[in-house]
């Protein structure tokens, strides 16, 4: 069971959270102007990375807030979590290597 650091409540076990899929996929400002192809990209197509993922979690059984996390999907090690709305942080190579370990 993962240990996840909620930016508001601190570290809690995974069962208190709901995973919200990949992060930083903003809903288009004007969906109706999207082509079918663009809309499908937004709705369904995912990077599904083997490596560092930016993903959303909701502290569903805690403070109920969504937040983002960077995690390495090869190791399930978290690099960091951060509040919704913040841009995806740049991560230095050493930290990435540590997460991949």
């Amino acid at each position: 069971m993962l240990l996840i650091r909620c930016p508001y409540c601190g570290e809690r076990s995974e069962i208190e959270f709901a995973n919200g899929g990949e992060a930083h996929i903003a809903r288009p400002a004007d969906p109706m102007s999207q082509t079918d192809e663009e809309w499908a990209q937004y709705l369904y197509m995912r990077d599904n990375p083997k490596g560092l993922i930016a993903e959303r979690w909701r502290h569903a059984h805690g403070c109920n807030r969504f937040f983002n996390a960077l995690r390495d999907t090869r190791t399930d090690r978290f690099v960091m979590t951060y509040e919704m709305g913040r841009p995806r942080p740049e991560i230095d190579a050493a930290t990435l290597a540590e997460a991949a370990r």
Partner: protein
Amino acid sequence: MQKFSALSLARKALGGHLGWTPQWRSVEPKPAYDIVIVGGGGHGLGTAYYLAKQHGLRNIAVIERGWLAGGNTARNTTIIRSNYLFNESSSYYEHSLKLWETLSQELNYNVMFSQRGCLMVAHTVHDVQVFKRHVHANRLNGIDNEWLSAEEAKAFCPPLNISPNIRYPVLGASLQRRAGTARHDAVAWGFARAASDMGVDIIENCEVTGILRGPGGEVRGVETTRGTIRAGKVGVSAAGHSSVVLGMAGVRLPLQSNPLQALVSEPVKPAFPTIVMSNTIHAYISQSDKGEMVIGAGTDSYVSYTQRGGLHIPAHTLEAICELFPMFRRLRMLRSWGGITDNTPDRSPITAKTPVPGLYVNCGWGTGGFKATPGAANLFAWTIAKNEPHPINAPFTIERFRDGVMIDEAAAAAVAH
């Protein structure tokens, strides 16, 4: 190919079984092939087999990053059934089920396909409505599926707890008698042996790291950890890694790779005659020929390529098992493991051409593609050989997500496995 039979077994016994030879040739890659299949699971190996057997192609390689069939083929709960709701799915799965029925003979390899039936138990009025809809739809499609009362279900599977006093009493069940299980590894080995025998090259411990493209964007081959391999066509059958491999060609897929866990109990004498699935309370169980209870757990919620998940997931499944089969509470978990399942938004697979000429993909089987192994392989081979889908897999494209023609078994309250 050395023929397998009781007689050959007896004959070889006289020589202390020294006379057997490798079941498949695990070889060094050649510089080029007509077709390269990426992924040596049941689907990939089967694809190579049908390409050779039905389409007369021989210059084929199957490239596997690890040991053959060590992916989800090695780790599934082996439930095979075809009683899906929508025509598109049920014809696909039924195509596969028919192939299962003669697979041992066709491959001269006993894959131990055991048609012991699959009971899907209903716990709510809604379940009953949904399962009956399946039963009727299947009947008109020529797929066996019948409705049993709770008592009939118990008669079919005596350990089932049909007490009305449990939290979610069993209200009845649908039963597909032709459903069953098979020896998962054997399927892959049998395909490997038969394909290899027809000249297919099986290359293990070789990871595809790139996809070579020509000037027109068309596929020219693959880069691997064992060098460049040229090929006119590349078929990807990499299950949990489909996004990774297709990503090498710049193709994004509607996939999420999640851990899916399973477990076995210690072996016991035959105590469980069939397969039972409960979607409402999440229990999937059958007993293997060796005697373990083979139990499917749920999906962990996040993307992961670790082949493991949290202990609370199998624990949750065991709660359900203990409720439905309270006499198994004292059985013990012997081993648990995880696989990486590639899940689409509509929980149906993709067996199709990709936007890249010469590149084909068979993926999105998620938590339920073992049953499709021969069928998917057969249709994927067709699609690659003819550069167009067979009518059965024609709906299973990537474009269906763009076009809004999903085949949403999950939403229709059908389930995985």
